[in-house]
């Protein structure tokens, strides 16, 4: 899924929680020793996400949320963004979920227990809990058919779920599905659902069942809405299974009632939510979300306010002020994804691997960390699996694979010159005639990051044409459309979908995953060896073995200089004085409304 700060991938760490945190702290420590940019501030958080208190807190009250950016989708079949996930995690219950302070263990949610995997990993059977109900106007009890329909509609072109093919594509019949019944999904009883797979990829499927696509959807309510292109389920009407719902009228319509595009959203309690079937405490009575204010203004309001949080990334000035004056009101969550620059390996100068290595060597990753807010908010990236993801340590940890162009995060002109010569430019400068097209995102810090990449390219002799556009345009029109032949996208990034390293590397670097539109393999890497290794690693079972396999693929990607690494992100979140906020450690660090309470 697209780049952060916000595109979310559910994720899971490879290791146990303690190990995960140790990895993250080690990453910080390591970068401290290697980088002047990261030497002056120790990472300090008002509250470690790992130690968050989840239960026994005050009930009631209204939380006020400020979001600079608007939401894209509330439909659990379409949502694929960190902002949207804050809503789906409060309104929808998928088959499995993560507790917010645990980055590795799947908790049964709608599912009654752990899945039964059989047939050598080609069959998955899951029992679902009774007495889970849909919100008004549906009101009835959830059954296995609702889960089946929720997943089947992911293949409906009107829903166009962005990860259906990647994680549900191995279900028998999924390759031909267009929204109707899929032969590989059976519901032998009211509370049983069975998945039949074409390959032994059950572990990956189970992980993907933590994504919102597996949240039950009532067909009698949603089918007529799914007939529209695009579906109006989630854009006008929605029903909930979680503790909260968007404020709606008696028909389930929320548009204009509980959601004013670009202005506000209101979450109220779901009267049909059954707390006896759920691990969520749902302390708050209501969540009022204000959309669109300037981040700088939001930062001031939140730090000086009471029952208030900022949900999206706070402004750099707010991070600084919080750190210096309100340390108990800011949290940093390591393992919040990566930022990197894609280099077009299929077209133009960067089809030459040595040119890619030269740019890698020349880029000042410390400078990028600095303009993003310093070491509190990230560390220099050295490979593509990031701290807290399985395979990160196997691929070299904080230092990364040992290749000369990766050794100096501050940039190494001598090594860059070496690879320029190997690429056929003995003077150390690019002398080809073409002008590189760079498309980056407006706004800070993306703008500054793009300009650092741009200057790096110019320092190597490239003529460049940098265009900064809105992030949605950057992705939607340019960086995800290979036909645009953009040479460099300096502001892309990735967050895991769930706790498996495949969710970090597969969509982004697997050749056959390249699509004419909505492409996430931004570098358009299509290396037969890497493709084969990924196909093999997909079938590997067991966490340590998978971590090893995907770690090796990560090393190969570095050897190919598949993209230009920039930053491992630590998400910063700020809250008011009266909030006992809880962040989602397992994902992007955003607030979890199901566990957040007033003090």
């Amino acid at each position: 899924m697209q780049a952060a700060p916000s595109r979310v991938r559910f994720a899971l760490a490879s290791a146990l929680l303690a190990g995960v945190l140790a990895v993250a702290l080690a990453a910080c420590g390591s970068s401290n020793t290697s980088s002047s940019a990261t030497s002056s501030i120790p990472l300090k958080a008002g509250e470690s996400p790992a130690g968050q208190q989840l239960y026994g807190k005050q009930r009631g009250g209204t939380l006020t949320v400020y979001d600079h950016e608007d939401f894209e989708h509330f439909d659990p079949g379409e949502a694929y963004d960190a902002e949207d996930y804050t809503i789906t995690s409060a309104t929808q219950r998928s088959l499995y979920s993560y507790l917010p302070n645990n980055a590795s263990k799947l908790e049964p949610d709608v599912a009654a227990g752990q899945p039964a995997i059989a047939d050598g990993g080609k069959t998955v059977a899951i029992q679902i809990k009774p007495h889970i109900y849909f919100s008004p106007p549906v009101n009835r009890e959830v059954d296995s058919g609702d889960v089946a329909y929720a997943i089947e509609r992911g293949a409906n072109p009107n829903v166009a779920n962005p990860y259906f093919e990647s994680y549900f594509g191995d279900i028998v019949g999924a390759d031909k599905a267009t929204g109707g019944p899929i032969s590989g999904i059976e519901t032998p009883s009211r509370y049983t659902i069975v998945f039949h797979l074409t390959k032994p990829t059950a572990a990956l499927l189970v992980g993907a069942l933590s994504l919102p696509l597996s949240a039950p959807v009532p067909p009698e309510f949603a089918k007529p809405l799914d007939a529209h292109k695009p579906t109006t389920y989630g854009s006008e009407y929605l029903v909930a299974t979680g503790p909260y719902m968007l404020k709606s009228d008696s028909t389930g319509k929320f548009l204009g009632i509980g959601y004013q595009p670009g202005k506000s959203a209101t979450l109220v309690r779901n009267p049909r939510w059954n707390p006896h079937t759920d691990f969520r405490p749902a302390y708050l009575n209501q969540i009022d979300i204000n959309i669109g204010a300037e981040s700088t203004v939001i930062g001031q309001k939140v730090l000086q306010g009471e029952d208030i949080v900022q949900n999206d990334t706070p402004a750099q000035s707010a991070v600084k002020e919080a750190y210096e004056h309100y340390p108990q009101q800011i949290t940093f969550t390591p393992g919040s994804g990566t930022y990197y620059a894609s280099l077009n390996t299929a077209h133009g100068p960067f089809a030459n691997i040595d040119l890619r290595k030269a740019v890698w060597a020349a880029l000042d990753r410390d400078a990028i960390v600095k303009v993003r807010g310093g070491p509190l908010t990230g560390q220099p990236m050295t490979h593509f699996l990031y701290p807290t993801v399985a395979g990160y340590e196997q691929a070299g940890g904080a230092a990364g694979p040992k290749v000369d162009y990766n050794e100096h995060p501050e940039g190494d002109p001598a090594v860059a010159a070496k690879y320029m010569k190997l690429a056929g430019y003995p003077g150390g400068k690019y002398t080809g005639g073409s002008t590189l097209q760079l498309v980056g995102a407006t706004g800070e810090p993306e703008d500054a990051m793009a300009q650092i990449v741009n200057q790096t390219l110019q320092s190597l002799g490239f003529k460049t044409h940098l265009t900064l556009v809105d992030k949605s345009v950057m992705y939607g029109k340019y960086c995800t459309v290979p036909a645009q032949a953009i040479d460099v996208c300096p502001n892309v990034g990735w967050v895991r979908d769930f706790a498996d390293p495949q969710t970090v590397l597969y969509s982004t670097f697997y050749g056959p995953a390249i699509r004419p539109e909505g492409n996430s393999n931004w570098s358009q890497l299509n290396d037969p060896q890497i493709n084969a290794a990924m196909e093999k690693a997909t079938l590997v079972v067991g966490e340590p073995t998978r971590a090893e396999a995907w770690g090796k693929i990560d090393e190969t990607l570095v050897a190919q200089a598949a993209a230009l690494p920039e930053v491992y992100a630590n998400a910063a979140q700020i809250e008011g004085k009266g909030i006992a906020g809880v962040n989602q450690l397992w994902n992007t660090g955003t607030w979890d409304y199901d566990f957040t309470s007033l003090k």
Partner: protein
Amino acid sequence: MTTGAADILVADPALGGRYDWSAGGFDAGGPGSAGGALAARSPWRLFWLRLRRDRVALVSLGFIVLLVVVALAAPLVVQLAGVPGPYVQNPNALDAFGSPTGPSLAHPFGVDQLGRDVFARVVYGARTSLEVGVIGTAIATVIGTVIGLLAGFYRGLTDTLLSRLTDVVLCFPVLLVGLGLGAACSVRGCFKGAIQPGVSTIVAIVALFNWTYIMRIVRGQVLSLREREFVEAARSLGASNARIVFREILPNLTAPLIVYASLLIPANILLEAALSFLGVGVRAPAASWGQMLADATPIFNTAWWYMLFPGLALLLTVLAFNLLGDGLQDALNPRMGRSIE
């Protein structure tokens, strides 16, 4: 002013006499004029004599001249100031949180969010502003003058068509057109690359949409001038239309053109700043005051200098052009403008 005016006898301004441009006569009513010596003075001499008595206009002119010199010699100015160039990124000039640091000996105007020297970028930003302001205004003035001359001189159907064209162009919201072009042509340009975002596109937008004001002024003047005796005289001598338009009428438009062009320049500088502020102006990393203001907005509470200095530069430049325009109006058309005395 009358055509072909050669030297005109006027009183020495120091003696207080005043020439009546519209009446073509000399008013020797000032103190000391009686018995004062008459001296030959061209209209331009008269203009200068009046202008130099307007201290505000002179200070403004001095500022603009300084600005032009600084813009032309920007690399030298930056070098002499001992600061890094406008594109030199220096993360070490940021604090531990990545925030820009303020004015210091090394960076008299502080640095921006990439550690670039704000002084150097303000100096280079002057180039952008003047390029758009002066070149855009010059092109708009030429277009407006030609269309205004044609409409006013030929009248009838020509006037109707050209005036309606002007009305149509006036209806275009320039800022929105700029935003649209900027968005649509942002990556590879439009019309096979003919329109590319950047200074040239802003100049084109300024020229294409701001000639209308000049056209209307010129047309009105020409409608009046074409009925004057000197035009009749030229026509009776067999002068061609082209000669009448360009040799008889056009010289009489010089004063209003100078005045309105001088007032259009600051408007166009502001337009460039607005477009750059909105992200469709100059292309990064080129320096523009408007773009700097946009970049400074979200970090104003921690980096006030980043907004202050480009803001001041923009304010003073626009103010100087406006004050100079007023001064020119007074000096070229004393009966229309403020009294200098």
